[in-house]
């Protein structure tokens, strides 16, 4: 499959994420949109890595070029999982304190 398809898919997912972050006030939805952007980039990384691997394979069958990026994606997913747990914990704490998950309540940090 041509690489452009992956790029357009990632671009669409990323844009949906950006627009979601900008327009929604619900903290959980904003958070999901952030995850969407992260995974759009992850997907792009795998796609480019595969393209790179395929191109290298055509020249030499024993090459391992591009493999490392696919491994790296797993690391990113692990870190993202940890980050998600912290983010959700913050949202839970926020709800406990304000009885709301409206993101605009967060602009009064000084109180």
């Amino acid at each position: 499959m041509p690489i452009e398809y992956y790029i357009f898919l990632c671009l669409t997912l990323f844009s949906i994420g950006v627009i979601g972050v900008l327009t929604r006030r619900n903290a959980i939805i904003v958070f999901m949109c952030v995850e969407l952007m992260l995974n759009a980039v992850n997907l792009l990384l795998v796609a480019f890595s595969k393209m790179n691997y395929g191109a290298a394979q055509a020249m030499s069958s024993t090459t391992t070029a591009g493999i490392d990026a696919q491994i790296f994606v797993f690391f990113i997913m692990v870190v993202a999982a940890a980050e998600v747990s912290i983010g959700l914990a913050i949202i839970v704490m926020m709800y406990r304190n304000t009885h709301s998950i409206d993101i605009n309540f967060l602009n009064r940090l000084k109180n």
Partner: protein
Amino acid sequence: MKILVAFIILWPFVGFLFNGLGRNYWSKKVIAYKATGYIVASFIASVFAFMHVQTHGAMTVHYFDFIHTASLTIPFDFKVDALSSLFLLVITGVGSLIHLYSTAYMQEESAPHYARYFAYLNLFIFSMLLLVLGDNYIIMFMGWEGVGLCSYLLIGYWFSNGSYNYAAKKAFIMNRIGDLGFLLAIFWIIAKLGTVSYSEVLTVETLSKLSSADITGITLLLFIGAMGKSAQIPLFTWLPDAMAGPTPVSALIHAATMVTAGIYMITRSNILFSHSEITQNVIAIIGISTALLAATIAIKQNDIKKVLAYSTVSQLGYMFLGLGVGAYSGAVFHVITHAFFKALLFLGAGSVIHAMHHEQDIRKMGGLKSKLPITHITFLIGCIAIAGVPPFSGFFSKDEILAAAFEKNKIYWVLGLVGAAMTAFYMFRLYATTFLGKFRGSHEQEAHLHESPLAMTLPLIILAILSAVGGAIGIPEIMGGHHWLAGQLSTIVSAPHEAGLTVSTEWILMGVSVAIAAIALLIALSRYSKQTDEEPSSAIGKFFYNKWYIDELYQKAIIEPLNEFALFLKEFIEKKIIDGAVNGTGKIVQFSARKVRLIQNGQAGYYILFMVLGIITLFLIWFNDIYILRFIHTLTQK
């Protein structure tokens, strides 16, 4: 030899440092002894240098390279030859006498001011020596600027008086105008010849490298420099105003030495000047016009120092006439004799002013003959010398210039005679009004009249002797002399003035000038020994009395338009345009800041939005940079 020459110039500088830095520590006695002693030491060294030149000929001493570049080397060299050694003797000799005189004349000043005065005076001698000793135009220019500075400092010596400061500024600015011409001439020489040393510039070979337009341009610019320093039309009005300084300063700087720097410079460069007919004519015409203009003004002045000041301008005009007609040695001769008798006259005037408690108006003097016997007799000798009565010194030098003028152009000679008659007239008017008749001042002044102390009369006596016999250095051949001075200068002056006149013509010329001077002198004596000048009533009298309204003319024609222009710059360009631009920049920043700060509203959503917008903009630029660069390119192409 290196050390001897260095001694000549360093002694006054040591004196300057000593008096300048120690002005709060030394007593007046120490200051006076040291200041005078250093100049006397310098004089003694000059005498040795002069003797050396007499026996061994001219010498150049090299100290170090002042400027050294690939294309231009300016060595710090001194040249001691017949011309500069003569000037050395005059500067340090007359300088020592005037220092001695000043020790008594300035006695009323407090010690720090007394020291300041002598520091300036020593610095002046140093600069003047630098000017005459330098072996290239750059060193001469350094001395040239130095004497201008000292002149400024000394004219404004009594700085608490506003009009004295004004006179000092006037002198400085007028000198600067001339300096610009001198500087441009130096640049021109460097551009054409790549050197400024006399030994390389002033030779016959360089003349072939320069076109006649170059020579005329360079010499005219040099002459502009001389004009400023030596007070010629149109830059002469500073010199009479320079009389604001203490009288010994007027004697030393504004009569005997500094104002002759222009003559020294032209004599030094005579090889160039002789090859430009145009410049020579310009010099002669300006010289004789200055001589006549200043003489007419001097006739009507009532301030003792003003008369002498205009007389100086007039005599400088004679010297330039001499330079213009090619009588270089005659001009130098007149410089030397003039240094003697004009210093004498100024110091005599200082003695009178001292006795009269700072009264300078000759209408309030009179009858000082018996009260100030030494001053009287020496002043009289000075007057006779300047009037050109044989065998006093002024006669020989003036006659030499007039004879050369006669040979070149009869009109110069006739005008010169008129000037000589006026010189005799105004000098004896001054003498008769001051010393003869009855005393016209207040009783208080009369009671305090006294002869000056020995420190003041001794220089007067020495200068009077020199004024009387100084002509001996240039007795013309027809009188049985052999003109020692012309022989001295024959190595410097490229085309020595050949006496093309027959002996009888020369005798007739002398006779005519002496007769005219004698008549003018007697008229002045008979007219002014009993009475003084009233306020002038006739139109021409008023015209002369008011100095041809030249100061007023400059005021209206140059100073006021300049002030208007400055006001325009200040009120319009400065306030509207420059301040507008500066304040406008500030206002734009403030205004835009007031608008832009509304964006910073504390809502995180907005921040993210702008971040995203910024990133999108960056991407747009990044992907389209080739179009943007092309657009900028088309803009700059137009």
